[in-house]
């Protein structure tokens, strides 16, 4: 009896120490996240007015802000749908591109470290000002703004029209939606490459954690490279696809246009209630997408051990 009591106190003691260790975060989370989430919800249901002496007054307005955002606001719905659509297009592209690149970079070759360093560079240079300048430099290098009109005219006169090729693939029986998707993917290739630095590294690590004996078995059983990929490599990296999808979704939403719109609405137009509505709606949509995608992949995922 006595022994049991002492054991209890030890576990309790350790529990208290554990709480002490996580205490700073716990206070911060309650203070900045939980409280702020409630405040965002509260703001979204009210009209907020900043008082000149500091502080603010809330006037209850019901669902007016929501109704205004969805019925009357000039661009919110449009920006929201384009942001979500862009994300839905980008996520599979980034995931598969980074898996593909990871497969390429996984093999040993000369200059591997250098190539990896280059691929990781966009993660380091992710400052807003730098990326803006880079976008401009990119368009300058591919002809520049002054040349764009000339190029279009040239393309129209030279007889090589992209429309023709699209038509050709269309008449081959490929569905039009797929062709458009591929065209879109080609057009945004630089964005995709720049957004997949971390994902490539995660996939490389995942590939290296696959035991070599599995490949040996596949080889002895006479599996081709194609079969080995689909039966060994792909199932083994499946759990990491979830990690990557979550990372990509969060990352692409963090600098989407909805965020900018919400920021401008709050700090340029001083319409705090409307801005909260925008933030809330976009967050809820992000979370929904995350939950659905994770469920979808998790059903198909295979966990080693």
């Amino acid at each position: 009896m006595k022994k049991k009591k002492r054991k209890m106190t030890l576990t309790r003691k350790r529990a208290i120490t554990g709480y002490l260790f996580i205490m700073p975060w716990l206070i911060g989370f309650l203070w900045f996240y939980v409280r702020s989430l409630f405040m965002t919800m509260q703001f979204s249901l009210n009209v907020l007015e900043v008082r000149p002496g500091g502080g603010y007054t809330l006037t209850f307005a019901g669902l007016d802000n929501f109704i205004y955002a969805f019925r009357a606001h000039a661009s919110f719905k449009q920006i929201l749908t384009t942001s979500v659509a862009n994300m839905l297009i980008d996520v599979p592209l980034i995931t598969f591109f980074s898996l593909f690149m990871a497969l390429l970079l996984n093999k040993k070759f000369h200059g591997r470290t250098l190539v990896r360093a280059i691929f990781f560079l966009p993660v380091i240079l992710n400052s807003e000002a730098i990326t803006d300048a880079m976008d401009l430099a990119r368009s300058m290098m591919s002809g520049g703004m002054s040349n764009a009109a000339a190029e279009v005219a040239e393309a129209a006169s030279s007889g090589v029209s992209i429309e023709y090729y699209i038509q050709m693939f269309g008449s081959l029986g490929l569905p039009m939606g797929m062709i458009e998707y591929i065209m879109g993917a080609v057009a945004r290739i630089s964005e995709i490459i720049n957004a997949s630095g971390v994902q490539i590294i995660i996939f490389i690590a995942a590939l290296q954690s696959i035991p070599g004996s599995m490949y040996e078995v596949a080889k002895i059983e006479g599996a081709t490279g194609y079969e080995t990929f689909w039966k060994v490599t792909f199932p083994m990296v499946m759990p990491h696809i979830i990690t990557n999808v979550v990372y990509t979704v969060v990352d692409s939403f963090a600098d989407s246009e909805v965020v900018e719109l919400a920021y401008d609405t709050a700090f340029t137009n001083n319409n705090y209630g409307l801005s909260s509505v925008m933030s809330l709606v976009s967050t809820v949509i992000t979370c929904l997408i995350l939950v659905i995608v994770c469920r979808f992949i998790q059903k198909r995922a295979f966990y080693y051990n």
Partner: protein
Amino acid sequence: MAKTTKATKATKNTKTFSVQKLKEQYMALKTDTQFANDRKRWQSNGKGFLIGLLKFLLIVGVSYVILGPVLGIVTSSFFSNADNYNPMVYMIPQEPTLERYSKASAYLDYWKTLSNSMIYSVTLMMIQVFICSMVGYGFARYKFPLKNLFFALVVVMIVIPTHTIMLPLYMTFANFDVLGIIRLIKGAPVNILSTPIPVYIMTVFGCGLRSGLYIYIFNQFFRGLPKEIEEAAFVDGAGTWYTYFRIMLVNAMPSVITVAIFSMVWQYNDTFYGKLFLISDDLIISKKIAGLTANIATNEKIYDPAIQQLYLDAGIVLVMLPVVIIYVVLQKYFIEGVERSGIVG
């Protein structure tokens, strides 16, 4: 090999054309194992070469997409006005000039802003490493009620975009008060916006820039360390804090380095918190660069946007340089850190 040459010789010698002979030769070639082996080898060599070439081209192409704009910025920052207006000049300036750099660094107040910016990000990095490793350790090694729920909340913190809570944060720090204490002393809540204090407060309480991710990394890493180390320390009479600081943290060096580097670089690049809390441009160089073009344009009376862009390019190079130097020196830790220290679970 010998048999093959014989077969080809035979084909050459036959001048009279007959189907029978052709058939015979075909059969001879078909049954010639030596030839078949050679052909297979050539085929697989050719295939290997082609795949290698394709890989090489792909990697070069993708690297170009990433490095291209960087090269463009660096080279055009050396362009003189004449180079910029000359359509023959591409990438390599004819009359390189350093004037862009001298102007850009003067308007950025480069060394002062850079050192301020560095102090800002390094101090935040140190707090970040200290707090996040502590929290990660708590989650990894101690059992307490609601632990799984709390850890799920850490993941929620990673997933929730910061912009959801930006308004309340702004309001909180515009009328800052802790449990009514400040009101008691000063009579009214204080406005601590436009100072870096809000960022420091949030970081101390484990809610800074990407703190959730760092907590996750540390948790993964500490879970991977053997328990025996701590047990040995405990038996030898080391207290909890001593064990944590002198033993566990030392063992977790790889993840400490990873988090430290990432935290510093991301903090240096971040403009979101800087903009939200209205922190002065002189403290954050990546925020100051945004106003550089307008500043130079109005003060130097440069009206051509193309020339303004050259100054911005020089400024961007100046801002990028420290980060790139850190990256080149510590490149190994960046990538290996992500691989090893458990972003991959």
